[in-house]
């Protein structure tokens, strides 16, 4: 997926990478299901690019965003790329903080075992606390 992602993001180079040495806490909040709209895929493209900036990156999955992480996505018949394996590749980009809101899973009859990647399941209150500590919150 890595190579295809590079192509999808237009072969961005990192000449403009910030060299100031500032490390900020970035949280990407995913609240939308995949395929119905493009937000989840394009969010993932931002996440991958952010890895090149050596920032403190985390991802939060709330509401329908938890559907991005469910196992067993087969998209051949809708002729849309299945980008769910990319979540498993995030570790290779040193993006390891994936938080999933417990209430969102429960509302949808899902458990951690239904997800295709290791995540930290957190209560709404803990998610709120984590959000409040961020410097930049980009939501999709």
């Amino acid at each position, binding site marked *: 997926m890595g190579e295809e992602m590079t192509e999808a993001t237009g072969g961005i180079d990192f000449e403009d990478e910030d060299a100031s040495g500032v490390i900020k806490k970035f949280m990407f*909040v995913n*609240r939308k299901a995949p395929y119905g709209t493009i937000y989840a895929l394009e969010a993932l493209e931002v996440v991958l690019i952010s890895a090149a900036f050596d920032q403190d990156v985390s991802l939060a999955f709330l509401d329908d965003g938890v559907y991005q992480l469910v196992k067993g996505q087969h998209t051949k018949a809708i002729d849309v790329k299945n980008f769910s394996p990319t979540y498993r590749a995030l570790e290779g980009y040193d993006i390891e903080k994936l938080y999933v809101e417990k209430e969102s899973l429960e509302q949808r009859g899902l458990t951690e075992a239904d997800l295709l990647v290791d995540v930290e399941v957190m209560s709404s209150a803990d998610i709120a606390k984590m959000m*409040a500590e961020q410097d930049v*919150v980009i939501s*999709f």
Partner: protein
Amino acid sequence: MLHIVNKSPFENQTLDSCLRVVGNVQGAALLLTEDAVFAATKGSIIEGKIKTAMSTIKVYALWPDVEARGMQDRVIEGIKMVDYGGFVDLVAEHSNCQSWL
């Protein structure tokens, strides 16, 4: 932290999600913009929910959006009205902000 919601509460659950997560967080603020300003109106089935939230968090609504939708005489008492300059001030006053899209 400032939370911004722009969806009508009668159309989807974004406001519910936002309040579920931050409705009890001391120091949090909620700004209702665009179609979310309908949540700031009296007599709707949402009013109770907003009033409960107001006991813990500060709730604001964007006046230009309230006015545009003809809701100016219906706003719930205690919800503070801000213009775009006030929106800017809210973002500046809080350490970060999240748009619940």
